[in-house]
């Protein structure tokens, strides 16, 4: 076994299988990306050094205490995957047409930007720049350097270091000042390989002043392999700009997903996040919001509906650094079978952040005695003129409500579904785009009914992991 120049010094620390795999493959990963700008190479080396020191987070770390991710570290994944060649059109293998809702589809395949065109970074008519982050660092280095690595700086851990050190590719979006992007952009992350992959992808989204973008981030097109998907997304929202971010997560039962999103918000900007987690082996959503400009507003919402042995972990950090900002967190979930949910909301209100309003709420329904919830809504406050509150509940469906529904002739199963749906609808209602809301409400209903919640019309059989298929087109749907 050949060791890299970063000697791993095995006597000091015992590395897990994944850790040693990563330590050994950094050299080759770095050499492959030799054409990158110095800044990225430096960032990679620094991050790798940091990883070598900390390793992967384990159960002794409070933020990972109940996490299932310790299982990941004892598995071996193929870390360095080669760029797939473009053979099929994205539209051919993926269709996500929600009635009355059209999106501009961008795709990543195994973490690589996937397009039919020669140009991997395009400038649209309205000035929006979109495409591969690898191309962006060379073609728009100024923009890239101004933000890359500067937004994702809170709550870093082994996986985020790995992402920086190893990322293949990702999506880059730049919306210039004053541009209101009409059509939503949909990022589809597809995974298809015969091997168990660890996919590190990195996205950078920059919104100029007074601009608007709505972005859908779909983690739902995964083949039957058990992969490890590790995504870091950095988002910069300029003055008075607004971003609607939808995250849809619907992956197979043995895939691990870390979706870490860091956002910087300037003055009077607005962020709205809806995380919809429907299925997945273990999903960890990290959301770090840094309110740097006065009057910024962050509205963070999530629904999770888990069953079997699945786990969802929502880590939400909001940093109120300046006065007059508002933040609100609402995360609701239903846990069935042996599933588990973790919520850790953390609101930090700095010394200067007077007139802050910060709200946090986490409600959970446990359906079985084997499901588990760990919730930790934290507040750390150093300013006095603030209104901060948090609430957390864990309980079951209201027996009285159930009784009255049944009294009116609704069978128990339907009554339960109705109540669960009503419970989840509070979050789904917050989705502004009406066709999307209808479609997501539909998926929630289906999910609660226990049906496979594949997107309507989608021809990928992502949610039927037991049937090994490789982008086989379901003719019945076309």
């Amino acid at each position, binding site marked *: 076994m050949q060791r890299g120049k970063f000697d791993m010094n095995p006597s000091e620390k015992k590395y897990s299988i994944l850790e040693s795999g990563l330590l050994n493959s950094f050299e080759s990963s770095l050499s492959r990306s030799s054409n990158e700008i110095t800044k990225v190479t430096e960032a990679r080396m620094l991050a790798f050094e940091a990883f070598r020191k900390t390793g992967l987070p384990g159960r002794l770390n409070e933020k990972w205490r109940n996490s299932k991710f310790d299982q990941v570290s004892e598995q071996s994944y193929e870390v360095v995957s080669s760029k797939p060649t473009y053979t099929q059109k994205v539209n051919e293998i993926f269709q996500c047409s929600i009635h009355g809702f059209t999106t501009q589809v961008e795709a990543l395949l195994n973490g690589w930007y996937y397009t039919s065109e020669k140009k991997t970074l395009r400038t649209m008519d309205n000035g929006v720049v979109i495409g591969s982050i690898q191309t962006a660092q060379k073609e728009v280095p100024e923009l890239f350097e101004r933000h890359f690595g500067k937004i994702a700086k809170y709550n870093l851990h082994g996986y985020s270091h790995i992402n920086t050190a190893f990322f293949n590719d990702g999506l880059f979006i730049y919306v210039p000042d004053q541009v209101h992007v009409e059509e939503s952009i949909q990022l589809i992350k597809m995974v298809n390989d015969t091997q168990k992959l660890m996919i590190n992808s990195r996205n950078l989204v920059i919104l100029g002043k007074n601009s608007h973008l709505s972005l859908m981030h779909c983690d739902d097109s995964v083949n039957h392999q058990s992969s490890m998907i590790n995504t870091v997304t950095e988002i910069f929202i300029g003055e008075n700009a607004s971003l609607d971010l939808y995250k849809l997560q619907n992956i197979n039962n043995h895939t691990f997903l870390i979706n870490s999103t860091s956002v910087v918000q300037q003055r009077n900007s607005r962020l709205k996040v809806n995380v919809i987690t429907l299925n997945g082996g273990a999903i960890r959503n990290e959301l770090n919001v840094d309110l740097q400009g006065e009057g910024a507003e962050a509205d963070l919402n999530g629904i999770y509906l888990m069953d079997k042995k699945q786990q969802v972990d929502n880590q939400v950090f909001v940093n109120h650094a300046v006065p007059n900002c508002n933040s609100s967190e609402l995360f609701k979930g239903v846990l069935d079978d042996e599933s588990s949910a973790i919520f850790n909301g953390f609101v930090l209100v700095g010394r200067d952040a007077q007139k802050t309003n910060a709200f946090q709420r986490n409600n959970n329904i446990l359906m079985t*005695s084997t499901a588990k919830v760990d919730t930790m809504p934290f*507040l750390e406050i150093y300013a*006095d003129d603030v209104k901060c509150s948090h609430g957390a509940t864990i309980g079951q469906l209201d027996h009285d409500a159930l009784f009255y529904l049944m009294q009116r002739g609704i069978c128990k199963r339907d009554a339960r579904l109705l109540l669960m749906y009503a419970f989840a609808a509070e979050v789904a209602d917050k989705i502004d785009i009406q066709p999307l809301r209808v479609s997501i409400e539909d998926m929630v209903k289906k999910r609660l009914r226990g049906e496979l919640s594949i997107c309507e019309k989608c021809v990928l059989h992502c949610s039927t992991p037991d049937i090994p298929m490789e982008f086989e087109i379901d003719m019945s749907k076309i």
Partner: protein
Amino acid sequence: MNEDKDQNNILEEVTSKEYQYGFYTNIEMDTAAVGLTEETIRFISAKKNEPEWLLEFRLKAFQHWLTIEEPTWAHLHHPPIKYQDIIYYAAPKKKKQLESLNEVDPELLDTFKKLGISLEEQKVLAGVAVDAVIDSVSVKTTFRETLSKHGIIFCSFSEAVQEYPELVKKYMGSVVPYRDNFFAALNSAVFSDGSFCYIPKGVHCPMELSTYFRINAANTGQFERTLLVADEDAYVSYLEGCTAPQRDENQLHAAIVEIIAEAGAEVKYSTVQNWYPGDKNGKGGIYNFVTKRGICKGDHSKISWTQVETGSAITWKYPSCILKGDHSIGEFYSVAVTNHYQQADTGTKMIHLGKNTKSTIISKGISAGFSNNSYRGMVRIAKKASNSRNFSQCDSLLLGSKCGAHTFPYINAGNETSVVEHEATTSKISEDQLFYCQQRGIDSEKAIGLIVNGYAKEVLNKLPMEFAVEAQKLLAITLEGSVG
């Protein structure tokens, strides 16, 4: 009218006093050498004429303590504690058993007078038995006879070791084992003295039991150990109050309190903690690292913690309940006030193991000056604890823009028939409230005192009467000078 006068007097004290209870008593001390080694432990054990099993327990705890490190997870910042610079044993030299107050050292009596709790007065007053602990050794126990009529054992820990070894052996370390945490291990190794209380089956303790702890000699850590056992269907209300003299060097205090409530028993444990908090610049003050835990062992038992925390430079304290018996109840009511550079990280743990168990947590934090006040609490519902119920409410009040108020709740639920609710708010005193007080001619300092007392009332009401008055005073004194 009288009440108004009282209120005014209290408020006046608020505005004038710095730390009222700072004085020093000159009593000859019998001290151990500085530092902690096996020798020190043997010395303490020999001094107290302890049986072999207890020495073994201490040594095991010490061996374990050597292998672990001081916890750093709390939201506290302090210079490292030099455990080898502490004197681990100090006792008044008088060893003779005292029968009446006349035999008590006059200086000691003076100390009590300054505290306003002279033994004679206490004796005549509300019928409160006082077991006064001055620097680790119990000097005087009153009302022993009255209590013994009911079969209640209430004595110092060392006496209990000599006289009731089987009881001590049975219960000591059963709730807080020496492996529990760093400070519990330290205490188990070097504990000097404390109180022991046993209420036999079916006995309703006729009076409030109380102990006044005082740290007295310079540089002596105080390591109390309290063991409270309520046998089946017994009831006891236990009070613990602390005041400490003003001193510059930091002092370490690592106590253990263990409560055992058998089936149907009820224990109410109230604390007013007012150790020396350090001066206005954050110099000095007590480091208070306490492990308090009770177990509701039998069905239908109940443990209730009430605490008013105003003192100490550092407070690290989580009075907890293990609700093991079915239908058992745990309660935690807390007011924690921090001012100047004080830091508090306090809260509770409610561990629901039995069916139909209930717990309530009411925590009120008030921070002023440059202080930091954190609530850290855990509610765990075990898989088998069906139909359990928890309600937590943690409010924080910020006075001034240089202080911090933090809330760190941990909720783990693993049972689908249980209901857990947690809510918390953080805010400052509303300007409307202040305005209306001032409009009625109450100046802002007094108005704040009034509002804070109202805010904490929910908890203060849970204290026995005489303590509630003292606690009210303490709140006011602690907040003195916090209004700019």
